[in-house]
């Protein structure tokens, strides 16, 4: 397993260790070379980490896409995953893993994250992760940072940090 970090300032060391253990394995749509995943930014907080999956396009208007995935930790374990497909916040407490790493499928040109919960009927997550339509990535580079302010809320109901705090509180992680 190859895990690469850059720009890390040394704070929250234990959460960086957790990120190493729980960094998601992702499936991304097969796209034109100019439209593929650029990088993944990360922000470390005491009870959660936000990963920002960054594409050059969100739709066909040329707007960049940053898809946040929130990893909430309690007692050194990943307990909740928060996502924001199409600007709607959702969270999961059950997911398929490889080793300790959860699997997240980014579907369609809008890169809406789908979590495979490991139920027999998770056919959508399976269909959108087959090799004919998607590409598996498990060694992507992580870069410390956050996107421009607009993406914190985008067109959703609340800033991503408020949602992260809410699911962390609900999970007893705070």
């Amino acid at each position, binding site marked *: 397993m190859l895990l690469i970090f850059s720009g890390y300032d040394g704070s929250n060391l234990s959460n960086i260790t957790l990120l190493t253990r729980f960094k998601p394995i992702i499936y991304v749509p097969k796209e034109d070379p100019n439209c593929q995943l650029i990088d993944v930014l990360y922000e470390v907080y005491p009870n959660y980490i936000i990963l920002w999956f960054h594409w050059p396009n969100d739709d066909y208007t040329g707007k960049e896409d940053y898809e946040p995935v929130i990893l909430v930790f309690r007692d050194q374990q990943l307990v909740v995953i928060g996502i924001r497909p199409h600007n709607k916040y959702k969270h999961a407490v059950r997911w398929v893993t490889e080793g300790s790493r959860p699997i997240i499928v980014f579907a*369609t040109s809008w890169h809406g994250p789908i979590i495979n919960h490991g139920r027999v009927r998770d056919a959508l997550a399976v269909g959108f992760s087959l090799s004919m339509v998607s590409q598996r990535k498990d060694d992507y580079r992580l870069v410390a940072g956050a996107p421009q302010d607009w993406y914190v809320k985008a067109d959703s109901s609340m800033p991503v940090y408020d949602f992260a705090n809410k699911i962390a509180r609900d999970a007893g992680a705070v």
Partner: protein
Amino acid sequence: MGQNSLELISLHEDPEKVRAIDKMVHDGVFGSRAEVYRTGAYLLLTLKEARRLAMLDKLDPALVGKKVRSIVESLDNDRLDEVRPGLVWVAEGLRLRAMLSPLLGHEDARDSYETLADSFFAYSEVMRQFEKYDASTQKRIRSDLKRDVAALQNSLTLTDQEKLSTGFRSPAIEGAMQQIKRLYFDENIVLAASHSQLAPELKDFEMEKYLTKGKVLEFDVEISKSQAKRYWTNISFPRASEKQEPTIVMSHA
């Protein structure tokens, strides 16, 4: 049933529910209170059938299967004017499926259906304005749409199959499967593994109950030795005859 009758029903509702219904109407989820009640009545009428279809994994194909196939045909034959109505239908079907998920005991699946419903609605909007995009963007839209409709079609095919296939084809296994197929085609071999040879990773995917039934799983996917060994232990690779069908068979010993 007229609008007045429906309003009478609402008078007997819990005021909080009425407020919630009005909020859904205000937010545009439904066109009117009447539509909310019609939807509720429709669900009551169809739920038994929906539940039976869901048990058989036939609900998704029943809701959107035909339209998905027609979108594929329209795209293949360049009949773009037929694509958009199909996309709206599929998006609405997926949205209904999202609503039904908790009622059918598939609570976890709701978010996936909702996300994909939103994506296909977004595609329908893109197709509405298709002519305004430049040629290269139009080409990209067609290619992306074909990819995503194919993915949805695959999902429907999976739900047509027995649960065991769906359970096995989880993303974690897919990587191993891809390489398994490559191994088959490169070396003309068939992978056989018994239940006792399964590595712990596979047991996480509810394989045990299927394999102990003595079922045979067949795959038309790819395979590789090094990757396969991550998932299976004590693997055996008997030679297959050249006449054998190009499928990978995993059998319960």
